[in-house]
């Protein structure tokens, strides 16, 4: 009986140590992720030069594969920016479906039966912000990344072709949605700025 009680106490103390250890790890991870995402988004937004030392420290920590796996599984690798330092513009993807000379225009997320599904799918569009930032900063986007983004657009076109056998071709267009600034409204109107276009023929 005494041994069982002692064992129970021992196991409880181990549990306490583990819990405390995990909590300490959570705190470290929150601080790390906050600094990592805040610093990189601030530098990116203001187009400043990265500090080599800070990047080296952040990269060294982030490159530890086991730690990165822990962050992935706990969701602790998220930033807490919440639309900071700026609200990003929205991108829209449309499909023009051509059938026997007629065309029908749909949004890329019009497939979805649920609002949550449509909203989630629309998040995909933000992956193309890399292109917008490259254009704005007059920089070349990484070739591999550019081709990867192209593959995604082509995949969307292919899906539309496969879905409806009557469709002869699909033109997929990527637009940057610009709503006028508060100072510009109402003189200026909202506009869709074309960024990229791909046509897939059956």
């Amino acid at each position, binding site marked *: 009986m005494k041994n069982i009680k002692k064992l129970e106490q021992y196991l409880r103390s181990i549990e306490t140590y583990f819990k405390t250890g995990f909590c300490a790890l959570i*705190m470290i991870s929150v601080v790390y992720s*906050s600094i990592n995402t805040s610093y990189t988004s601030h530098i990116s937004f203001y187009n400043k030069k990265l500090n080599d030392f800070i990047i080296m420290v952040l990269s060294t920590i982030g490159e530890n594969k086991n730690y990165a796996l822990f962050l992935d599984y706990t969701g602790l690798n998220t930033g807490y920016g919440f639309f900071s330092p700026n609200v990003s513009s929205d991108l829209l993807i449309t499909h023009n479906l051509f059938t026997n000379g007629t065309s029908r225009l749909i949004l890329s997320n019009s497939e979805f039966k*649920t609002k949550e599904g449509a909203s*989630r799918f629309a998040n995909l569009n933000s992956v193309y912000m890399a292109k917008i930032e490259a254009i704005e900063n007059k920089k070349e986007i990484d070739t591999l990344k550019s081709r990867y983004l192209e593959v995604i657009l082509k995949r969307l076109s292919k899906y539309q072709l496969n879905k409806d056998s009557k469709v002869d071709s699909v033109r997929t267009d990527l637009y940057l949605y610009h709503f006028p600034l*508060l100072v510009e409204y109402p003189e200026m109107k909202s506009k869709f700025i074309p960024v990229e276009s791909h046509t897939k023929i059956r």
Partner: protein
Amino acid sequence: MKVIQRLGKYFSQHFIDFSNVETNFVPVFRISIGIILLFHFIAVINDFELLYGMDGIIPTDLQTIYQDSRIILVDEVIGSFDKITGSHANSILLFKISYILLSILIILGFFSRFSALLLLVLQVSLVKAGYYYSYGADFFASMSLFYIMLLPSDNYWSLRKLIFKSNRTQSYNVVHRTLQIHLMIAYFVSGIEKLSGFNWRNGESVWKAVHLPNFTNDFELDFNWLSEYPWVFVALGWTTIIIELLYPLFISLKKTRIAWLYLTISLHLGIALTLNLYFFSAYMITWNLAAFYFIKQQE
């Protein structure tokens, strides 16, 4: 020594006693998170096949090209279910049933820590396989499940306690304190980042946010007429900055804790109303209540 004593007395008079917390926060956190997880999954269940897996619109291998290959993805989970069910369609159904069942076990408090562990594997398998579809709510879902694993989640208001009649008590102060500090850091960092963004200071960020086309406006609220009163957007921007930036201070003071808590909850209700981020707001409100509502009142 006297200075330290005076400081200690000052802090105990004006700041909340972080360790003096009601046990109710544990079941409230567990049950609320379980309900949000359940409804968040049900909200997308009819589009599951379009979003996730190799048969989705954007297949898993295309979405996970830059990811750690050690993460278990939804395709692997469903593939392992194929051995039980014998068909892919039934495996997807089993995945959905498992997700819903685990959420219900968490709500009921029946081996909720183990259920949270299993649900975390399923939830992350979806988030990583549908990487481009994930957003803030998904990360808070993962973190919430991890906190449920660390808390003595079955010790209060639980089916397990009802059946097994256990009187076992476990400490939760360290985990609760971690949750509090986690929130303080999150809001402070958010406030700092917003303060550094000039569009938050001049109202343009709020104006832009309420006009984003991908955040559909369920209530069809028209904000255009407010363009004649630009100070409204400037005020909203600065209010958001102040609520977030000063959160760690005012949520810790006895006199301002409840007021700041309600201000923060109002902020999230406003986000839910205007940007329709219902689930994200629900997670944040739950975290705030669990962390700072159940502090015992002191003289």
